């Protein structure tokens, strides 16, 4: 496994991604055959199946890929920053802050913003989710920024505190909510890709691509950071600037995606780790690989979400948890066996 060069991984993952996108476009409560797909793409028309494919299915498949990529890369960044494999992008408060923003909208809705609600229209929820995520992360950052230096341990603790705060806030809103609103909060917290349209898919797509490209730029510095902050400093890395920028990137990637699809956990934790167990902790590999693998896995999860209880929809956050864990355990057990022969994680 370890001897296979990076390029092979990229090619294989790329092909798998293409395959998963095509299959994902086909599968759903309304299955669309491949012939129909090619026909629609070449002859735009107005049949319901075609409109479904072009307006709902396609953007959803792409949104799923972008979200999976963004969350996974985010996970890789956070794990490099904290030098700890159990770190998730939600650790610094972004997901729970976004969830809180969403809860506010569900419960207080128009009464909160008055005239603004009309201008924002369908963007009310994503905007509030984004603000919530951003504020939570900023709070965590400020709390852990002592004398201009970001202390990674304090970052962890501050993240726990802010997460608890946001969860408490969301819990409060759930409590005072009427039953339908409370149910909306629950559904949003489990994540769903059903709201995909070209507009929000475009936004998430652009942000995801931008974020991932920028992350690649920092991959070398993040590698150096694996040796420790002091060592990275000796290698010429400006560690303070790096930490701030990685935090910003993380917020950018996670908050944008979460504000559109809700909270989908576990992806950022598992995907980089699978790659690490398969090949290497080199951050450039992890970032590219996570983007590809995350897009693939989230699409598989979404396919399941659309099919298991069709015509209803199963919450995707539950699937990522159920599907991710066994794969992870399998790899971990295999790694343990290798370890007895002097393999990884000695």
């Amino acid at each position, binding site marked *: 496994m*370890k*001897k296979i060069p990076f390029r092979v991984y990229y090619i294989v993952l790329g092909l798998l991604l293409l395959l998963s996108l095509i299959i994902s476009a086909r599968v759903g409560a309304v299955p669309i055959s491949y012939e129909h797909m090619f026909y629609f793409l070449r002859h735009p028309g107005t049949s319901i199946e075609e409109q479904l494919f072009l307006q709902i299915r396609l953007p959803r498949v792409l949104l799923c890929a972008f979200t999976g990529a963004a969350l996974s890369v985010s996970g890789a960044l956070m794990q490099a920053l904290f*030098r*700890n*494999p159990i770190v998730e992008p939600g650790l610094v408060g972004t997901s729970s802050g976004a969830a809180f923003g969403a809860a506010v909208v569900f419960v207080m809705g128009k009464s909160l913003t008055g005239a603004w609600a009309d201008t924002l229209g369908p963007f009310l929820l994503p905007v509030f989710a984004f603000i919530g995520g951003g504020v939570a992360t900023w709070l965590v950052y400020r709390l852990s920024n002592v004398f201009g230096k970001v202390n990674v341990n304090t970052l962890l603790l501050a993240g726990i505190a802010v997460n608890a705060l946001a969860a408490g806030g969301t819990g409060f809103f759930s409590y005072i909510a009427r039953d339908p609103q409370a149910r909306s909060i629950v559904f949003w917290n489990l994540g769903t890709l059903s709201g995909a349209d070209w507009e929000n898919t475009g936004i998430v797509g652009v942000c995801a691509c931008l974020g991932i490209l920028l992350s690649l730029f920092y991959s*070398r510095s993040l*590698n*150096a950071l*694996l*040796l*420790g902050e*002091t*060592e990275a*400093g*000796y*290698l*010429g*890395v*400006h560690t303070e600037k790096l930490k701030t920028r990685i935090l910003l990137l993380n917020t950018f990637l996670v908050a944008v995606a979460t504000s559109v699809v809700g909270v989908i956990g576990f992806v950022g934790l598992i995907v980089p780790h699978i790659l*690490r167990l398969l090949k*290497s*902790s*080199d951050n450039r590999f992890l970032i590219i690989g996570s983007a590809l693998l995350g897009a693939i896995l989230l699409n598989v999860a979404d396919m399941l979400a659309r099919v298991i209880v069709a015509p209803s929809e199963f919450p995707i956050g539950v699937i990522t948890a159920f599907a991710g864990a066994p794969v992870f355990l399998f790899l971990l057990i295999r790694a343990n066996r290798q370890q007895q022969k*002097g*393999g*990884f*994680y*000695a």
Partner: protein
Amino acid sequence: MLEIQGLVCKIGSKTIVDGVSLSFDPGRLHVIVGPNGSGKSTLLKAFSGEWVPTAGAVTYDSVNLTRIDKLHLARRRAVMTQLPELHFPLSVEEIVMMGRYPHFSFSPTPNDRAICGQVMSHLSIQPLSGRDYLTLSGGERQRVQFARALAQIWEAPASTSRYLFLDEPVSSLDIHYQHQLMQLARDLVKEKIVLIAVLHDLNLALHYADRMIFVKQGRIVAEGAVPGIVTPSLIREVFDIEARLLEDPQSDIPVIVYA
């Protein structure tokens, strides 16, 4: 050439380094010794640029350290500390390649790869190159870190010196590897690198150093060429312990024995 002028390092109101002036020429192994809390590690940190002094100047070839860009500094100054804790698996060659990071922007050039190869064979760790760092023994790991530091300063720039600082690099190693590492450091002397180490073990220092600097309570007590500089009264003054110097029939370096 590394020159220190009136260096003062303080944390809050506590003075750790109190007015030190020294110079270090390339081509000799300089070793700084002193009891715990004497400020020797802080000194090294000030030399390497990690610690910004409260007062005084550190100059590299007559250029003040504060005026040197962090990346350019990394191209000619390497530091080796006690083994850093690594939590993720990385191969040996990936770690050695990190030494070349200050030298390339996106991808390593063939030159970088060649240098890594040379460094690894110089330290006899070529067979380990594909191995996972976490599976190595302490001695092997230290050699890998040494290789990384060497890779950082392997190329000799035209007009400036290269600097290698070793901050207690052998404390966690067993005797065989302690000597192995110090010998490797000693071998660099002919490369005209400014070589400064901080050591705990006086005998080890005596055995390999060209020059020793004795530090106590943030001040230089004495410094000079080995073995002349070391006397029992100096050891008593600095370390507060009685010692004797025994002659070794097979070498002109004495052995320190403690009472």
